[in-house]
């Protein structure tokens, strides 16, 4: 669009309805991507796996959005909103892939707005309370390091769509981790007060890390086929990165990750998820005819 008035492009030179096509086929996240399943892959399994990765991103994005208008500085608000937007984009692609893989043809909105808490597959750390800014930094540090390790491997998935989504995500997640690292260093190695807040945040987040490396049967099955990644295989790498960051931030080297069991991946959630979804889904459920 050129010219002084951004609205002129909407009316001039367009006699078709195409300009007004938002809410139609044009918004599909995977429009025109070849979505054939690789041979031997069970569609239902791939769909569940895409929901796991997509729900982690969707729920974390919704949590991050709670910082908008409420972050310590405008720059941080913009940063957290951008990170949330990247994650939302990843969620859209993954949930669209899930709807194709399971044969239902459900779109991203059907997954985001019309599932109940027990049908969500995200890990608990994604839905955990927002807490203070130190906790936001620690949560983002852990989740971005973990997701980056998973996506680096998924970029070689035998499912070409998943591989493409992951390869794209790696570049974004590298920025997210960099952001979290810069704040972890600044707060950990800052004042006594900021250091203490980081210690408290780590104490709150650390018990939730065990679940990140617990393997769901679907993850095991798809990992065996070269389509997915067994999260236990990234545990060491994630721990090593976090140790480097936390010791660099003059915080104590982290304890080993606690043992965790598969919970959110099976649809078992904390009490935090239902109110988060109420807010996320309210408009779509109250106005089923609405398009955007």
């Amino acid at each position, binding site marked *: 669009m050129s010219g002084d008035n951004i609205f002129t492009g909407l009316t001039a030179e367009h006699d*078709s309805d195409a300009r007004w096509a938002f809410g139609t086929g044009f918004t599909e996240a995977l429009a025109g991507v070849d979505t054939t399943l690789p041979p031997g892959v069970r569609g239902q399994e791939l769909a569940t796996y895409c929901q796991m990765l997509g729900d982690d991103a969707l729920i974390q994005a919704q949590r991050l959005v709670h910082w908008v208008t409420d972050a310590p500085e405008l720059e941080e608000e913009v940063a957290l909103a951008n990170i949330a937007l990247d994650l939302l984009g990843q969620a859209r692609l993954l949930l669209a892939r899930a709807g194709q893989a399971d044969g239902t043809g459900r779109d991203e909105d059907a997954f985001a707005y019309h599932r109940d808490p027990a049908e969500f597959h995200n890990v608990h750390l994604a839905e955990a309370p927002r807490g203070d800014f130190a906790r936001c930094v620690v949560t983002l540090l852990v989740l971005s390091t973990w997701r980056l390790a998973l996506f680096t491997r998924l970029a070689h998935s035998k499912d070409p769509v998943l591989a*493409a989504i992951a390869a794209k995500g790696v*570049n974004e997640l590298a920025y997210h981790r960099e952001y979290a690292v810069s704040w972890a260093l600044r707060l950990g190695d800052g004042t006594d007060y900021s250091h203490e807040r980081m210690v408290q945040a780590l104490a709150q987040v650390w018990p939730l890390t065990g679940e990140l490396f617990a393997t769901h049967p679907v993850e095991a099955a798809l990992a065996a086929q070269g389509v997915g990644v067994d999260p236990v295989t990234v545990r060491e790498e994630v721990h090593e990165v976090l140790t480097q960051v936390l010791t660099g931030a003059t915080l104590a080297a982290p304890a080993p990750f606690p043992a965790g069991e598969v919970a959110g991946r099976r649809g078992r959630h904390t009490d935090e998820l239902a109110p988060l979804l109420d807010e996320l889904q309210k408009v779509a459920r109250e106005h089923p005819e609405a398009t955007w």
Partner: protein
Amino acid sequence: MVATASDTEARERARERAWEAAAAVTDPELPMLTLADLGILREVEIGQDGTAQVWITPTYSGCPALAEMRVDVDSAVRAAGFEHVRVRTALSPPWTTDWITEEGRRKLTENGISPPGDAPVRPSGPVPLTLLPTRTIPRCPLCGAADTEELSRFGATSCKSLHRCRSCLEPFEHVKEI
């Protein structure tokens, strides 16, 4: 029907026409740049039945401008005389700022936006962690000074960060290397 040399030629000319129409579409968030400048336009094909298929690639997964660009490409190619147009998404290989053309970089600078440096080289293994600032420090696109500081790694859109020139004191945006 056997395709003759002139059929092939006509199809190639049609392809060029569709390409040019799609290439001229501008980015809603960086309106000084066309899709060709950005390297977002990946491929154009004309089918046997005359359908124009256009592949574009998203910059960031969550880039909200993509839906708008699809609509713009669709109407631009239609306006170039193609009755049937399909705008498709190419997810792989992922977009990189290295695909922004020299022309695109010049236009960015002219508009006060610092163009990206070289994209980070991604090894096939784990993304290396560095605890020191690693990204390039952009020159001020307004006065050309090298002495600039980063205000925020994230700016008004996914693709830009926010900086300030210590010499002319003006704030400016930089297209992040990705």
